[in-house]
């Protein structure tokens, strides 16, 4: 293999595949990046056996070929170079390459490309398209509710259901549930429901930087899903199992509903969190339709040894007086992704789940949080 390419392109390409480079690993070769020539471009691929990312960069190719190189080393070296044209060439013997700039040259040892786990190629299956922005927003709003490490692996993923032109993203960790509906650009050829690892989706969220449509393909065997956008392909393994039937977890009615300005609620939550930190993270919310104007929301927290804090917010409250306590982290998490000016908080009793949703988004986003049990 022999080619010329621009330092900034190579550097950018390497940073795109970086999330898929394995960190702790049982298979050392997964810490490598696969460089291969592909129809006049240089293809970079990495896989940690859960997700595989490939990207293509422009290159002037003199000789075709493929090789795998330790990703970390290559990235560090390329990033240390100035912007310039660099020459990449496989070594005449051994499995290494030489990378040559104007003033520097490095020889990096690698291994034969055949030893690299095959990067799955996916063409067949259930396919659809979604706008990049819609996909990014949807991921952003649900991925925080997925469990990080759980004895129930399905909860570490996000359930994605394609049905006609509708798509529903859902994630839950046993204490909270986030559901986001969105539209597809093209109807899915078949109704399908898959569980994608939350980590994969976080990677995709980071990589998506435009509104260009994203191709989504779920393999016929329902074992992998492909996201293709611009010069990037992300293939992820799917998690086996059945996602909880979350529809029945979303309360269908409420006794109290308060509409609050997002930024005021966020600020009050932050303040309450200071005291909540030493008090098991409990934040108490009290809603009342009485008082001046249309109603009020009181946010309070206390820590026995430290002190307490109470905040009063104007709110638009309907229904009976309501009291509910949430974990400060869960509350601030959902407020940080809600993305509208006004947020609605709905509840029935202080021991049943509370619902938080943006106002005026057409019911696209619903976030359900289990309350904490406290003595009022």
């Amino acid at each position, binding site marked *: 293999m022999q080619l010329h390419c621009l330092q900034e392109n190579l550097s950018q390409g390497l940073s795109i595949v970086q999330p898929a480079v394995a960190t702790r690993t*049982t*298979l050392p*070769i997964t810490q490598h990046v696969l460089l291969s020539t592909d129809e006049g471009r240089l293809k970079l691929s990495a*896989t940690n*056996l*859960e997700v595989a990312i490939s990207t293509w960069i422009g290159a002037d190719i003199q000789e075709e070929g493929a090789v795998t190189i330790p990703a970390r080393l290559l990235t560090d070296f390329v990033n240390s170079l100035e912007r310039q044209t660099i020459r990449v060439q496989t070594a005449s013997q051994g499995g290494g390459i030489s990378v040559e700039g104007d003033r520097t040259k490095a020889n990096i040892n690698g291994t034969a490309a*055949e*030893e690299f*786990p*095959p990067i*799955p190629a996916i063409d067949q299956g259930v396919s659809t398209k979604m706008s990049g922005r819609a996909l990014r927003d949807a991921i952003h709003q649900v991925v925080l509710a997925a469990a990080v*490490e759980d*004895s129930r*692996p*399905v909860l*570490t993923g996000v359930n994605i259901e394609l049905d006609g032109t509708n798509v529903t993203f859902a994630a839950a960790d046993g204490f909270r549930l986030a559901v986001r509906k969105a539209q597809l650009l093209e109807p899915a050829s078949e109704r399908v429901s898959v569980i994608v*690892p939350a980590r994969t989706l976080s990677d995709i969220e980071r990589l998506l930087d435009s509104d260009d449509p994203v191709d989504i393909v779920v393999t016929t*065997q*329902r*074992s*992998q899903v492909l996201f293709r956008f611009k010069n990037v392909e992300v293939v992820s*393994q*799917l*998690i*086996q*199992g059945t996602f909880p039937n979350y529809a029945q977890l979303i309360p269908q009615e409420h006794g109290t509903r308060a509409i609050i300005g997002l930024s005021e609620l966020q600020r009050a939550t932050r303040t309450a969190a200071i005291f909540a930190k030493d008090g098991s993270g409990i934040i108490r919310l009290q809603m009342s339709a009485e008082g001046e104007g249309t109603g009020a929301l009181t946010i309070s927290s206390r820590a026995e040894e430290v002190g307490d804090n109470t905040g009063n917010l104007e709110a638009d409250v309907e229904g009976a007086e309501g009291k509910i306590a949430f974990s400060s982290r869960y509350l601030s998490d959902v407020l940080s992704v809600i993305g509208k000016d006004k947020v609605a908080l709905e509840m029935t009793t202080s021991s049943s789940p509370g619902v938080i949703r943006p106002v005026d988004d057409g019911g696209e986003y619903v976030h359900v949080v289990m309350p904490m049990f406290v003595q009022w």
Partner: protein
Amino acid sequence: MLSLHGQQLPVRTLERSLSEGRLHHAYLFIGPAHLGKTTLAVQFAQALNCDADAPPCGACSGCTRIAEGNHADVRLISLGEEAGSIGIGAVREIINSAHLRPYEGRTRVFIIAEADLLTRDAANALLKVLEEPPDDVVLILVGNSLDNLLPTVRSRCQTLHFHPLSVSEVAHILQEERGVSPQHAEVLARLSRGCIGWALAATGDDTMYASVHQRIEQIVDAIDGGLEERFAYAGELARRLDRDRGAGREELLLWLRWLRDIMLVQQGNAAGITNLSWREVLEGQAAALQPADVVRWTHNVNRTIEALERNANVRLALDVFMLEAPLLKAGA
């Protein structure tokens, strides 16, 4: 086709479940070391991921990479560098990746090469996968004996027993497949005690036989010598065991086999001895020792093995072992 010398029963069982497509989600391969349990486990993993007519073909990209340990869906879990057990961390990784669909093959296979060494917590964590195995996942636990496995783990696996081969089978295989001379094949076969893996490795690596030969030479000298030589031997052995305590058991097993040979010669059954090339020395020592002394001596060996396993002072344990050993009759 699966193939493993002398283990027709487990091979047939696995072949049948492959051809009928009725797989167990977890297998337990039990038997002494060097019989090819892990080898068969790897072959089975190849078969589960190979598309040939009589899998495994052993030649396709998948089979090759499984053999090299580079396949994404087949993982061999064995002891870490320094740890003496397989911990819960390794099992958690299994659980996490078991719930992903296979990456490139058809079946994810996890081979736990030293299942005896799973910690209690690790074994309990493994129950989760054993109880509710995801589709497309096969676990193979390999171990030396069932005793060290939790009954809950045992009961959730299909157990396949591996037995040592007969000495003549091993000798036959060595002659047929490796072209070893009949005499040397017989010597190696007896030394291997039916563990074909050891015998095959020894034919490829002369230092293995040389090392056993040298150690037996030392044992012979220690038995022939007086207390001075014996203590010198104990001192040298103790230094070696300080670095590698596990070697003590192996060394003392050589003693046991040697003493057994002496007993066989004393009882007039010299044909059954293990250390075939030492026959004359054995006859000399057999004549110079009382059978009752030899019996007591073997008990001492066992006691010493036990003492070492209980973390006794190596030098002291070996010195006591030597002190209690009978001396040869003068002039014999």
